[in-house]
């Protein structure tokens, strides 16, 4: 991943967190989204022309991305621009609060940008219209090509200020792109911005690839590849494109995931009909066997503090979810409901485990506490699985497949997201069919 330097926080003009300003509660489904006006960013007339894109409309484009991000949360209601009452540059200096209140806006985003010496300088402010106060004022300098990321970072800063939690807009999704008929699917590793833009394909589709997962710094992806018809866990450096097999196991390795410190990969190793969980230290290449049981043990996922591992096992007869210490001791089954449970993934906040449940031929995505209590099923469908957490632990992304007819027609695989409140289910646009999503952490922390 390209290392991008943002000169951040040039100025924090004011930060009135002690005052009772507007807040957005994200802990429940929001039936009353906050009306917010996102003014187009004013483009400084001294801005240089850049051959690759239109400078004059850049401010409007950035505000559109911010609006789209806000809308996708279900927590905000971006107002239509044709009702806006003030010019962007004047509003940015100081809005006429009472005029903005007339169009029922409670928050206002203003900003301006300047392109000079091949640098893009963006400044924005968030205003509380009810209290008639500035809530955030920040500026960034970056290369002009990063303009979409600037929009995402602004979105994150505003989300953070209004909800009190970190955002998830300046992030990427790694996934498997799918094309071709159902029984001859061509699968490629793909990468896109969280909003579906800047799609890149990381493999050519010559071999089957599955289950990509980011490392904590988002520079590496670990995944399963059938290169030379030998299913093994691989590591891919996104920037250099260099791929390497992880460990020389005499059999299939699969279901890889990074440890929270990024130093290890945990995965399943299948031999002679038995799958157990192993970890490998990426630096020393030391392999450690963590489970030793004649049943299937797979889909391991570390707790964010690295002390525990949740995993999927059929040692009780059918697929259930277990938790153990990361050295493999104190194994405890945590699911006891009717149905099968799979794909446990620990929330980045540590409080919840997301999972797939199969019951009476239907598939559910759900969450529960890490001791198995408080199970909540968020969505039901014909087929869906493999949840992955947004970096703030508030949204899950997963994939859903549709039923096909006797010729395999009607089949599709798409990415979907849902808030852990159970509200705000939405489909993510992808260039092709898609599965096995992995949500990165925030790219700029």
């Amino acid at each position, binding site marked *: 991943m390209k290392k991008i330097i943002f000169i951040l926080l040039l100025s924090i003009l004011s930060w009135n967190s002690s005052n009772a300003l507007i807040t957005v509660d994200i802990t429940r489904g929001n039936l009353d989204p906050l009306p917010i006006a996102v003014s187009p960013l004013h483009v400084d007339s001294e801005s240089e022309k850049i051959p690759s894109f239109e400078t004059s409309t850049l401010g409007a484009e950035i505000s559109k991305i911010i609006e789209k991000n806000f809308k996708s949360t279900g927590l905000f209601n971006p107002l239509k621009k044709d009702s806006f009452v003030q010019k962007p540059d004047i509003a940015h200096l100081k809005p006429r609060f009472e005029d903005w209140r007339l169009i029922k806006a409670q928050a206002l985003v203003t900003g301006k940008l300047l392109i000079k010496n091949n640098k893009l300088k963006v400044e924005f402010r968030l205003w509380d219209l009810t209290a008639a106060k500035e809530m955030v004022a920040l500026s960034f300098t970056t290369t002009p090509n990063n303009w979409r990321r600037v929009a995402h970072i602004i979105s994150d800063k505003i989300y953070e200020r209004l909800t009190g939690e970190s955002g998830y807009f300046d992030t990427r999704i790694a996934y498997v792109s799918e094309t071709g008929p159902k029984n001859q699917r061509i699968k490629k590793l793909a990468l896109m911005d969280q909003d579906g833009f800047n799609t890149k394909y990381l493999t050519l589709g010559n071999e089957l690839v599955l289950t990509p997962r980011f490392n904590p710094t988002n520079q590496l992806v670990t995944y399963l590849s059938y290169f030379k018809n030998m299913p093994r866990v691989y590591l891919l450096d996104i920037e250099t494109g260099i791929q390497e097999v992880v460990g020389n196991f005499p059999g299939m390795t699969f279901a890889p995931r990074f440890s929270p410190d990024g130093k290890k990969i945990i995965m399943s190793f299948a031999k002679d009909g038995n799958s157990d969980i192993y970890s490998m230290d990426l630096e020393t290449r030391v392999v450690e066997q963590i489970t030793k049981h004649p049943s299937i043990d797979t889909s391991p996922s570390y707790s964010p503090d690295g002390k525990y591992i949740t995993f999927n096992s059929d040692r009780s007869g059918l697929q259930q979810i277990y938790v153990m210490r990361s050295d493999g001791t104190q194994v405890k089954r945590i699911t006891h409901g009717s149905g099968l449970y799979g794909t446990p993934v620990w929330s980045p906040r540590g409080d919840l485990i997301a999972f797939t449940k199969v019951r009476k031929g239907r598939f559910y995505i759900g969450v529960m506490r890490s001791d198995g209590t408080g199970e909540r099923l968020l969505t039901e469908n014909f087929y869906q699985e493999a949840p992955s957490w947004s970096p703030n632990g508030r949204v899950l992304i997963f994939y859903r497949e549709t039923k096909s007819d006797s010729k395999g027609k009607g*089949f599709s695989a798409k990415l979907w997201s849902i808030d852990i409140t159970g509200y705000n289910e939405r489909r993510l646009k992808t260039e092709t069919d898609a599965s096995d999503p992995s949500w990165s952490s925030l790219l700029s922390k």
Partner: protein
Amino acid sequence: MKFNKAIKNLFIVLFSTLLISACSTAKKAKVDTVDDVYTGTDTVEFLAKGVPDRIFFATNKSKLTTASRDTLRKQATWMRKNKDVTVTVEGHADERGTREYNLALGERRANAAKDYLMTYGVSGKRISVISYGKERPVNPASSPLAWSQNRRSVTVKAN
């Protein structure tokens, strides 16, 4: 009038065809699985005359049925006669499970077949296994019949 009659006849013919085909599919589905395991021959190919290439499994199971063991004994006999042949046993699952568990399940099914072949005198060196999980359905439909045909292990000549 004649025309009307002709149409009427046509309808009768059409309708009875529909009825017959409906009956035959219903009947077929019943006959083709026993205890959730496919027992038909629709997708089966042959390694040699009288030596079927695949066996079928119940949902989430890797236990060999009587019919599966019979097929594997035929494969073992054929392999003992053809000493130069090496095979790959491919394990598969249906689309009604999570991807990662299905990979493990496919591996378990392929090894169940491999173990049985070894019991009947085929050296393990001549048998490699690979799991495709739910990735390579033989029947792409989303139906109980298709799923039963996809829960399989297939012995494929490797040389």
